[in-house]
């Protein structure tokens, strides 16, 4: 496509053309009516004047006959700027007036007619047009009175000429403006196209140019740039995850292999082999678990699981999960309590939310510290019960439902909380604990799938994890 072709094809230029045609049509119509009206006005003026003259002359004829009429016509003919007069015999021979020659046959047509004539004082060949009224006087005499209409024609011509010129000016200016605007837009679009091609070629850090005018092109560019930011973030995350996956899966695989090789080398008895195989199975089960968690995160993040959402009570989930983990907590000497009194309806994926909460509770049990039985007077808890080490709550807060797990363990320092949610991250203090390092990332991915979020807060002391989910149902919070 040539540069000009491209320019002519722009939306801006096409719009200019459409507007130009519309405007030109409107202007032409306006001028046409104007000219027509001006012409009508002049004609009206002529007929009024001529009618008055004819009335006057007829009166003179009635009073003084042919002679008097002849005299009056002669006098009027000589006035400067006079009308046209011709007083003629029934045979058409002029008696008085200021017309030298006339189109033949005019005198025989009674009434208004346009005729070509030459004045007496005009040189030969200087014919003019006139609008004349021919009337017949008693006795067969003809009286012709008229006025030159060259002036009318001139006005008409001036208007049409002006119209033509202004039309030409409009066309030139319009087309020029159209070219200018289209070229400006085309230049910006070309710049954007060029940038997007470099982005497509793999340079994801490039952004579309923004002119700063805040127009529709800028808005589009800003939105596309925001989209690119998101894509870039996702890609970066993806790369990090691949690296982490490679690292965190290779380590146990190497361990697995080493253990098998050691067994082949050193094992003497069947019991030795059995022990090696048992640990191999255990290790591979752990690997499968890690894979499952990764797949779950991927599914949750892709939004695929968002299809089978239903309404359910988060309080019921809190009770269910707490009931599942309560014996585990008790075994570690931790008291786990649930505070989830009322319905807290959530729209979402029941199984996934249960899993997210289970991960949070599992985490809390791993890191929580038992609270000493002896509490100072005024402290919480009954006389026999120590204050809870882990509290699971479900409640409505505004237009959200919060599922909270609070423990009294070491907590996570504020500057490391965002990091803790990332995949495979196991903070220094937790390296000694078993686990894949995926629990919090999975909970976070599940929260995002529900358009909610996972918050890590300070429980002073300890960690409070809050799973914030959008509330469902019409019931109001108190």
């Amino acid at each position, binding site marked *: 496509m040539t540069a000009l072709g491209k320019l002519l094809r722009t939306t801006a230029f096409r719009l200019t053309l459409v507007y130009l045609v519309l405007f030109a049509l409107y202007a032409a119509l306006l001028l046409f009516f104007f000219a027509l009206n001006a012409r009508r006005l002049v004609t009206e003026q002529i007929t009024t004047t001529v009618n008055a003259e004819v009335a006057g002359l007829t009166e003179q004829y009635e009073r003084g006959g042919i002679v008097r009429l002849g005299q009056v016509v002669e006098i009027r003919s000589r006035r400067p700027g006079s009308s046209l007069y011709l007083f003629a015999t029934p045979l058409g021979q002029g008696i008085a007036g200021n017309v030298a020659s006339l189109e033949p046959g005019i005198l025989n047509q009674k009434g208004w007619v346009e005729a070509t004539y030459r004045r007496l004082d005009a040189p030969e060949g200087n014919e003019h047009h006139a609008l004349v009224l021919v009337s017949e006087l008693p006795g067969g005499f003809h009286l012709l009175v008229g006025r030159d209409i060259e002036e009318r024609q001139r006005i008409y011509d001036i208007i049409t000429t002006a119209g033509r010129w202004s039309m030409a000016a409009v066309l030139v200016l319009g087309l020029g403006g159209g070219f200018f605007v289209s070229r400006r837009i085309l230049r910006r679009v070309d710049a954007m196209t060029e940038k997007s091609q470099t982005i497509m070629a793999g340079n994801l850090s490039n952004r579309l140019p923004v002119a700063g005018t805040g127009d529709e092109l800028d808005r589009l560019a800003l939105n596309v740039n925001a989209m690119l930011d998101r894509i870039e973030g996702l890609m970066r995350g993806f790369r990090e995850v691949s690296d982490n996956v490679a690292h965190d899966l290779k380590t146990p695989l190497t361990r697995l292999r080493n253990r098998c090789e050691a067994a082949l080398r050193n094992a003497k008895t069947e019991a030795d082999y059995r022990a090696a195989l048992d640990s191999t199975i255990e290790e591979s089960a752990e690997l499968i678990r890690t894979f499952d*968690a990764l*797949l*779950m995160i991927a599914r949750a993040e892709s939004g695929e699981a968002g*299809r*089978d959402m239903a309404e359910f009570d988060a309080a019921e989930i809190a009770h269910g999960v707490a009931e599942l983990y309560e014996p585990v907590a008790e*075994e570690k000497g931790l008291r786990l309590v649930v505070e989830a009194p009322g319905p807290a309806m959530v729209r979402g*994926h029941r199984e996934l939310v249960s899993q997210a909460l289970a991960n949070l509770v599992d985490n809390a*049990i791993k890191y929580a510290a038992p609270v000493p039985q002896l509490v100072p007077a005024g402290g919480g808890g009954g006389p026999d019960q120590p204050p809870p080490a882990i509290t699971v709550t479900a409640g409505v807060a505004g237009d959200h439902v919060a599922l909270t797990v609070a423990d009294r363990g070491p907590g996570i320092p504020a500057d490391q909380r965002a990091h803790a949610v990332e995949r495979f991250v196991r903070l220094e203090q937790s390296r000694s604990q078993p686990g894949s390092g995926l629990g919090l990332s999975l909970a976070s991915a599940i929260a995002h799938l529900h358009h909610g979020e996972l918050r890590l807060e300070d429980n002073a002391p300890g960690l409070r994890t809050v799973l914030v989910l959008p509330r469902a149902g019409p019931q109001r919070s108190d």
Partner: protein
Amino acid sequence: MRLLIIEDDRDAADYLVKAFREVGHVADHAADGEEGLALAVDGGYDVLIVDRMLPKRDGLSVIGVLRDKGIGTPALILSALGQVDDRVKGLRAGGDDYLVKPYSFAELLARVEVLARRRGGREETVYRVADLALDRLSHRVTRGEDEILLQPREFRLLEFLMKHAGQVVTRTMLLENVWDYHFDPQTNVIDVHISRLRSKIDKGFTPPLLHTIRGAGYMIRDGAR
């Protein structure tokens, strides 16, 4: 027990056939959906093990055709697709159980045996194992003359174990059937629940009835037999 394994992966199928024969079952193998359907229609099998993705005809369609023909042989679906909606699809197509790859043979064996038993099983009101009795209507559990008080969840746990008395029940089976959770709770929470239950029904009584089967799961059985 006669089993039909419909699985296109030759290695996996050979391993399964061999493993089932070792524990005393008869296992046949079909390598694609059409062959599997033909064998299954001829009948005589107690349980079908159907891979979901098969050449010629996929696993769900094999089960669908069988159910349309009125053949109700219990079918267990094997699949690498393990999300809740995949399971639901499989069970809706007429599958009786769903196991996600990779699985352990102990898990598969336990589920297949439960399926085979379910076929002829009638629903009893009172389950009995030795002197332990569980009444499903009055929710009363007794051992000998003593009444045992259980929490509702402990009752359902014991109910499931006793329904499948003499069979291995895996941890995932318990999690799915007693708690209705289909995810892996990381920590072995089930073990703790079992040891609680055990302390209520076995502590102070002989013989112990609730046994841990190493590498597989749990079983309630009369130790004398």
